Every structure is written in C-alpha cells, then in structure tokens.
C-alpha cells in the first residue's frame, strides 16, 4: 500500500514520522488521524460535458484523552508549526473538559481506545486510472445521449455522471498503534426527467445507491451500461400513468428502496449514540432503548440484519473504524430479535453494552461518532416471483425519491419513483408518485417475505448526515426484494 503519509511536507521528514513525533507521551492517550481524499466528478448533462471537478482534501486530527478530559485539534496545515498548534488545541480542550466528563453508568471517562496495528485496502479489479479521462467522458456522453428519447420534447432534463474517490487514512497513537487504510469508491448516476403539462416525473439509476468500492467493475454490478434506455422508457411511461391508489395493501420494495428503508428505520434507531442521547438536539433520539437488546421483537422471524464491513466491494467496507477498532461481521437482528446496537468503543464504555466497530468520521476535520457502515438485510429463500404470486392486491415500488421520519425514527413516510400494481399475483399497471407510510416499531413485524440471493443487491448511500458539528458519510446497504403486509400506500397530489 502506498499512501500519502510517506510523503514529505513541510520538513525533511516523512509526515508519518512527524505525526508520531508530536504525539504527546505525557497524556493518557493521544492519536493522530491523517486523511487525504482525492475525488473526481465527471458529468454530461443535456448533451453538454460539464466541467470536471477534481478535489484533494487533506488534513490531520489530533485527539487527546487525559484525566477524564477529551479534546481534539484538527488542521489542514501540515507544517511543523501547524501540527504543533493542533496538538496544543487538543491538549487545551482535554484540560478544559476534564471537569465535565462524559456521562454514563459507571463510565470513568478514561480512554477506552486501544493501540491497534493493521492495514486495509479496497479490492480493485478494473482500476479507474487505467482508463483515459477522455474515455470516461465519452462513455458518459454515450449513456446520456440515450436519455434523449430521439428528441422527444417531453424529456426536460437528463444527466449521467461518475464520481471516484480514493481515501487514504493513517491512524497513529502514542502507544505504538498504526492503522493504514486505502479506500477506492465509485459513485455512478443517471437521471432523466420528463414533463407533460403539470406533471413532471423522474427516473434515476437507483437514486445513487448503486455505488461501491473497487474500480470500474462497480459499473457492471448493477447494469450501468444498459440502464439509460430502460430509465427513459419508464419515465415516459410514468407521464401517462395514474396516481398510485390509496389503501392498505401488500407492498414489495425493490432493493433500491430497501436501502433507504433499512437506513432510516433500522440503522439510525439502533445507533448507540442516539440511544445515549448525543443526537437529541439534531438527528434525533430513538424509540429503541437499551433494555430492548436481546429480547425485542424488531421484525418478523424473516428479518436478519448484519453489520458487515467485511463485504468486499460494498461502499463502507473497512478493516478498522476511525478509532482503530478492528471490524468484523456482527448480527444485529436475528430472526426478528434485536441483538445489539451499533456503537463504537466509546459508546460501549459509556453504556456497558457490546457494540461494533462503527466509530467513523467524515474526514480529518470531524471527530468519530457512531455511524452505520455496511448494514444489510440478509437474503431469504423465496424467489421474487413467489413474493409477487402471493399477493392478491398490492404494489411494487422502486427507487427512493422521498424520505421523512420522526426524530425517534418511528413514524415514517417514504416515496418512490416508480410503482407497479400487483393484482392476483401478477404485476399490472404502472403507477406514479407511489408513497407509503408506517411506524418502524410495527412495520418490520409485517415483513412477510424476503427474496433470495438472486434478488440480493449490494448498494450504498452517499449522503448520511448526522452529528454536531455536522458530518456526512458514505454507508453501505444490501438487501433483496422484501414484502410487507397491510401497509398504507397512496399517490400524489391532494
């Protein structure tokens, strides 16, 4: 692995050596977390190649724990003076907060972090850099042109884009810890909108969820090359489609909507920092309480959920979280019963509960907090056809377009781009503006079918927001099609 910490900036010494050298030895725990993210965004919209955007974001965060105090200092100044100033800021805050230690049952405020050693790098089959910049643009232009529907005037906007990230991180501690990770991510997208008078409809390539780690093989996983003609056909179909009916009925969610459903009504509710109250002023609390783990019936017996940063190619795969805790696959919900929360080492110490390695920061300038990584609904044993065949009256919804849920992560309302009615076991009429609403605490108990491996999609979400100060991270979700009984569905307009 060749990463940035071996480069030289500001002095004749390597950055890694300089980071290690400035870590104070007279405190309980100190770490330096260096992050360098390089990203490139390419886009073609309405037949016009948009200006490319190439970013290089780099900095370091020092964290100091001492006598119950915790402070951090982060800087984009990697000169010797900049590093020293950031260490001084972290030390100052550790001292200033020593009298206001973290709350928790029996938590002493002492640092629960360890001095881990390890490495991780994304697997890449088709490196992005092996394809010339112009060829990436040409490929996008080719897909984007297919969205034009041979000049159909009803197409009012269309775009195809690709975003690549290479994220290098190095965590070193004052006890010899060293974790080096190199993540390669690809985010493809296609969007097309059509209008007919007062009716505008849009279709997209999974609303951005068909992302992943690796190289250009990410595009192959969900049929990026063949997506445009299908999307443009469907968006025109939606223009003439009736609104989704309003009624209680069976609902099948495609994987690209399941990603959102998992994210909002399983992922966030079982984040341990929410349960501990950290997010009550911003992202919210949770209807889940600490006493539910091990006994609460979160869903039907068909529901099995794992925290799994070991899934190769999923967008939030990693070897270690940003506190240096080694990551491993962990069951969170087994046969419908809630097993454990998603909480990193600090939250585990505060709550005296077992958790997972999910302490993550969006970059060098924000401290790690409890986040989702790869959070997946495991496949069942039904075929998609069997799920559909079992429905007398229902709807199948694809691709998220709207999401809203209360601050306890209970009362939700979600909308999709594309719906199809299911009547007497068969897919029938296409419907527009399909929405549904429910309550997390009961919705998952109505899970009546989980499709098998053939329907299983490995996906991700690129914009999960949380934390004070605010952080936006990329998380992974995987799921097959799932069927839910007796759901309130409805269409658009009033």
């Amino acid at each position, binding site marked *: 692995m060749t990463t940035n910490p071996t480069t030289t900036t*500001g002095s004749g010494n390597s950055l890694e050596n300089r980071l290690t050298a400035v870590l104070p030895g007279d405190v309980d725990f100190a770490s330096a977390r260096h992050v360098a993210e390089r990203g490139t965004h390419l886009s073609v919209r309405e037949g*016009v190649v*948009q*200006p*490319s*955007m*190439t970013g*290089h974001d780099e*900095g370091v965060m020092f964290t100091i724990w001492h006598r119950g105090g915790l*402070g951090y200092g*982060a*800087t*984009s*100044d*990697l*000169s010797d003076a*900049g590093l020293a100033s*950031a260490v001084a*800021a972290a030390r*100052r*805050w550790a001292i200033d*907060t020593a009298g*206001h*230690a973290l709350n928790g049952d029996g938590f002493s405020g002492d640092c629960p972090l360890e001095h881990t050693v390890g490495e991780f790098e994304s697997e890449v089959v088709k490196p992005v850099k092996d394809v010339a*910049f112009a060829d990436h*643009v040409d490929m996008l232009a080719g897909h984007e042109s297919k969205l034009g529907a041979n000049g159909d005037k009803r197409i*009012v*906007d269309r775009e195809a884009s690709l975003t690549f990230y290479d994220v290098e991180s190095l965590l070193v501690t004052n006890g010899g810890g060293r974790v080096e990770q190199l993540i390669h991510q690809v985010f493809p997208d296609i969007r097309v*909108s059509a209008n007919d*008078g*007062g009716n*505008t409809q849009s279709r997209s390539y999974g609303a951005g969820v068909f992302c992943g780690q690796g190289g250009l093989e990410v595009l192959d996983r969900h049929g990026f090359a063949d997506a445009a003609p299908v999307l443009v056909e469907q968006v025109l179909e939606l223009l003439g489609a009736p609104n989704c009916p309003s009624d209680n009925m069976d609902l099948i969610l495609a994987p690209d909507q399941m990603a959102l459903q998992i994210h909002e009504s399983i992922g966030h509710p079982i984040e341990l920092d929410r349960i501990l*109250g*950290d997010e*009550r*002023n911003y992202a*919210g*609390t949770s209807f889940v309480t600490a006493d539910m783990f091990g006994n609460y019936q979160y869903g039907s017996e068909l529901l099995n959920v794992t925290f799994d940063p070991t899934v190769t190619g999923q967008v939030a795969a990693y070897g270690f979280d940003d506190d240096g805790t080694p990551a491993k696959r962990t069951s969170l919900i087994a046969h419908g019963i809630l097993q454990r929360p998603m909480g990193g080492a600090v939250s585990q110490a505060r709550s005296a509960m077992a958790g997972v390695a999910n302490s993550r920061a969006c970059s060098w*300038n*924000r401290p790690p907090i409890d986040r989702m990584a790869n959070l997946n609904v495991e496949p069942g044993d039904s075929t998609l056809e069997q799920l559909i065949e079992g429905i007398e009256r229902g709807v199948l919804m694809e691709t998220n377009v*709207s*999401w*809203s849920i*209360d*601050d*306890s992560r209970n*009362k939700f*309302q979600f*909308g999709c781009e594309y719906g199809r009615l299911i009547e007497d076991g068969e897919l029938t009429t296409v419907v527009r*503006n399909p*929405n549904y*609403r429910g309550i997390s605490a009961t919705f998952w108990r109505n899970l009546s079918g989980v499709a098998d491996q053939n329907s299983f999609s490995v996906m991700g979400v690129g914009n999960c*927001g949380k934390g*004070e100060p*605010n952080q*936006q991270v990329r998380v992974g979700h995987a799921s097959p099609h799932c069927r839910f009984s007796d759901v309130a569905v409805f*269409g*658009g*307009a*009033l």
Partner: protein
Amino acid sequence: MSGAGSVQSYLDEIVTWATSGLSSGEVLLAHLSGEDSDFVRFNGMSVRQAGAVTQRDLSIDLIDGARHAQGAVSLAQDPSIDRPRLSALIDDLREQRAAAPEDPYLLYATEGTNSETSSSGSMPSPGEATNLIIDSVGGRDLVGVYAAGDTYTGFANSLGQRNWFQSSTFNFDWSLHLRADKATKNLYAGTEWSNDDYQSKIDWSLQQLAVLDREPIDLVPGGYRTFLAPAAIQEIIDMLSWGGFGLKSHRTLQTPLLRMITDNATFDPTIRITEDIAGGVSPDFQTEGFRRPGEVVLIDGGRLVDTLVSPRSAREYDVPTNGAANHESPVSVAMAPGSLPADGVLTALDTGLYVGNLWYLNFSDRGACRTTGMTRFSTFWVDGGEIVAPVNVLRFDDTAFHLFGDQLEGLTDQADTILDPSTYGGRTTDSYRLPGALVREMSFTL
C-alpha cells in the same frame, strides 16, 4: 497557520503566484473558504466532544478559451506546502481540460469589482463559554453544540479581481430535555455575546420546559388550526428553496412551484419572499466572481417574480446572472412580516396547534409542492388562547399552496433572524428572516 489576520493576504499571495505560472490566454478563478473554529458538543450537562478546527480550502477553475476544468485543494497556508500541491492540481486540470470539449455555458466575471467586508466579534473564550453554558441551566438536561470563531470567504482571479468576506461569530444551538422526546429548542447566535441576552433565551427555554412537564396528548390525524413559529417556517422555506427559486429547476419544470408556471397557482397576496443579501450575513460575491445584488425578489403578491440565476444557467437560458451560486438556492432568505401581533399569537390561534419546530421535511409530490414532515420539540395544544399540554409528534402532509395560500390567515408582524447553525464541511453563513404563520387548517396524517 500564520495567523487569522493573514488569510486574506495569503489568498492574494498564492493566486498571484499561481497567475505568474499561467500560460498565455489562461484564466484562473479561485475561491477560498476557511475557518478557525472551536466546537463544544454537550449531552446531559457533560461535554461529549470538544475541539478546534483550522481549515482552508481553495477551489479553482482553470480556463483556456471556452475549455476549462475545476479543482479544489486544502491549504496549509504555508507556501512550501501549498505551492507544490496547487501546481500539481493545475497540471492535472490542464490535462483534463485538453480532453474536454468547449463548454458553451462557461461564464465568469471579467470586469468584476473588488470588495472587502471584515467584522470582528466579541465573545467569551471557548473554555469560558463552556463553563458559562453548563452553569446557566441549573443541572437541566442540555444537549447541543457551541461553535465559535472566524470564518473566511474570498475570491481572487488572474484578472486582478479580489473579494473578501470575514466574520467572527458564535452559534449556540441547544435543546433542554425533560424526558424522552419532550424538549424545547433554542438558538443564540451572533457576533457580540451578551450574558443578559443569552440568559433571557435560557429563561425562555426553562419556561417552555415547565409546560412540557404536563401530560402530553395524542391527536388523531386530521386538519387542525395551526400556528407555525418562525423556526417551523424555516423548514418549509428550506423545502421551497430545494428547486423552488432556481432558474434551472424552473426551465426544466422540476420546481416544486410547477403549478405557478403551468396553472397560474399563487400563494396568498401577502407572501413576499426575497433573497436578501443586504440584510443577511453572507458574502455578496460567488465562485465565478459575480457580485450579488442586495435583493432579488422571488415571490411578491403571492406570485413568482424572479429566480436565482447562476452564471451557468445564465448562459444556458440566455438571461443575465444575478450572482447566484450554482445550486441556485437562496442563502439569505427573507419573508416579509404581516400584521398579526407576534405577542398575541396564542390569542389569535384560540384553539389549535402551536408548532415550535418542524423536522425532516420532504416532498410527497414535488410537482404539487406537497410536503410531509414531523412536528418536533415545542409543540402544544392551545385552547381558548392558553397552552394546555404538549402534543406527541405528528406527521403533516400538505402543500405550500395551502399553508401559504388559501389556508393562510396571517403572518406575524415581526420576523425572527435565524443564523443557520449548519456545519456540514464548514460553518455556513446562511441566514433567514422569517415571521410566524397562522394557518386555518393544516393536514396531519399520522
């Protein structure tokens, strides 16, 4: 970093240096954003996390004729680090630009004017603020974040234009919690910290807590007479700002105000919404070097007047730019107040819902401007002009054409200034000036 006061001169220095390395005919646009901030995160009267962040980011656009490529790089504010890094980026962009076709929508300021706005502030040291905050709430369950320090925004180009905006601010965004989700939220932000002003806001929160201590009630879904406080209006405005006021979303018919275009739908004649740069705290320049006018009237008399036009949209749709950012959303939005006495909203409401905050809004039908979201924090049932009890969270699903249209009874005669506490990527300078709204009937569904 060599000191906050030198950020402006450093931008000038590094862009001048980069300009000296440009080829004949090349143009460089550069936009700096940065901050020296302290953040203190509270939970349950304890400090969850506290620290300092120093960051400088430089975004550039490297232009040659109608071809260009854009990039961004973190700055150390040390030439020995930044010059090689910026030089490498420029080399990459030249390579990309050579492979790109001409951009028919490229537009940047060529005759821009220089400007400089710097304001200092007065506030306690971060450590003092931490102690002051903890001491002020008397052991109550406090959750939130205090952010303070200097923020910087600058523009410089190889044509010699220079613009600078710098301010020193604090923003304390907190809630006091009684139990479960029963809490009251408030914000204290500005440039000059006043212990008296701060304490009055804390006292308001404590008074709200006393009401929240009453037994909460569950309301069944249906239509309710509702007062929306300014913080709740902010959430609705944020949704309208998601494509509602930008030229591109209007021309591509993806705006939530589509019915204003296709069906001549209107808001109530009292509704006036503006992009009020003159009255806000945001820079009056943008990334392509264009200056923003003091005001852009978006809605007046309940009808569309103008849209926010980025330079790119200006080229695409052949209209003049008004200095909007590429996202074409307002950054300093103002809604004109009405005539409803702000100190008499409970009396005017009489019987119905007082909604202090809304949360997690989204469109349930964008084309119809139909929006859903949740009540949160201080939401009360009012009977006969008196607060009776807190109300458990409710989901609404309604359109702005009702809330700001046929169901609007009135806007308060005072508008609150809200400095956005958002810190994604960095501390924002966005702000709002909004009244409260009394709505005859608002639709709640869950």
